[in-house]
């Protein structure tokens, strides 16, 4: 398979090309797996693939939305792997805090916003911004947090609730919760924690 150039990949992502999605995924997949097995201790094939998929999702969204521009000397591969590493570190931190099954009522905490801003600083920090810009920037931060930082079981709850539009009882059945009330409690905890993180991020970016 012919290796794509970084600028072609970025152009393809910006155009939201379906073909590029597959080409990009295939181009770095095996390389990433080798890199992951070498650098991420205790990782297995399934976890490595999940992290890689999540990294592709995050990078794709970020570049497509124009929220990140590759520096002239930076390689796309490096950026993708960095995002994957960040996701892995986040996940590992969350697992250490909550090693039990995802059905546990204990909801993971989202990562420290300082860590986030250190690695992925928000692009917009200017003082003079319009209401539309503010909304856009808020949306951008929300996407970043949702795409990279939400851990289980919040991730699954959000998926079932917003994407698959399941009812609480369906989610309870799917995630082995005792009843729909437990799902509602878990979901509200997730939302609350997400709100805290987002508010902090908005404040840091001077959006509120």
């Amino acid at each position, binding site marked *: 398979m012919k290796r794509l150039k970084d600028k072609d990949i970025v152009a393809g992502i910006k155009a939201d090309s*379906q073909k590029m999605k597959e080409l990009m*995924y*295939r181009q770095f997949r095996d390389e990433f797996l080798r890199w992951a097995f070498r650098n991420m201790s205790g990782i297995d094939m399934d976890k490595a693939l999940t992290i890689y*998929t999540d990294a592709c999702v995050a990078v794709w*969204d970020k570049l497509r939305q124009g929220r990140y521009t590759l520096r002239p000397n930076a390689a796309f591969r490096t950026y993708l792997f960095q995002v994957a590493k960040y996701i892995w570190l986040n996940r590992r931190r969350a697992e250490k805090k909550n090693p039990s099954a995802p059905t546990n009522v204990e909801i993971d905490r989202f990562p420290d916003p300082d860590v986030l801003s250190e690695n992925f600083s928000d692009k917009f920090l200017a003082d003079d911004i319009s209401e539309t810009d503010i909304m856009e920037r*808020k*949306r951008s931060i*929300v996407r970043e947090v*949702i795409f990279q930082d939400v851990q289980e079981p919040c991730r699954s709850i959000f998926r079932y609730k917003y994407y698959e539009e399941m009812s609480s009882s369906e989610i309870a059945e799917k995630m082995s919760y005792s009843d729909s009330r437990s799902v509602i409690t878990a979901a509200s905890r997730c*939302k609350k924690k997400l709100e805290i993180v987002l508010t902090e991020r908005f404040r840091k970016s001077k959006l509120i």
Partner: protein
Amino acid sequence: MRDEMEEMVAEAVRDKEALRDEFAAIESGLQRIRKVHKVRKVRKVRRIVYLCVSVAAVACVVVGIFVRRTSVGDCRTLGNGVVLADLTIARGGMDFQPITDAIDEGRYEDADRMMAELRNIPAPDYNPETEEGSYRLALYKADMQTLDYLQAVSLMRQGRPAKARRLLKAIASDSSSFWKDSASGLLERM
């Protein structure tokens, strides 16, 4: 969570999960293709292995045939080298001449039949206690040993090395056999 924020979260989750599903579909497609490739590769390897095994088997058969032909040829040559005139002298009164003639003329079935007839004749009832009886018995035994040796030579000339070798071994291991040394010599050369 405020409505505005919740709406943003819902939108982000929907976008993320949709994208995730697309990448997951790419991954499962990739794994399917790799599985097919793996199956093909295994089949290819299996085909090569089968081919190698077949070639090896054919080679074994060819070499086996060659070895057998060589062995049969050697055995015949060796058998033909044995002078049967020496074997016609019967000590105990048996007439080996017709047998040696049949072998020399290649009438092996006749020779076999004649040898079988001689073997079927009941052993003479000599008294081993007497000197005369013991002598006659020894001569009869010597004739039977000659018959065995003739049989071995006949088998060699027929190109039946395995059977001939078995018989020669039996003769060579019999310390009282008159043909012991000749049998050992033939065995060594086989």
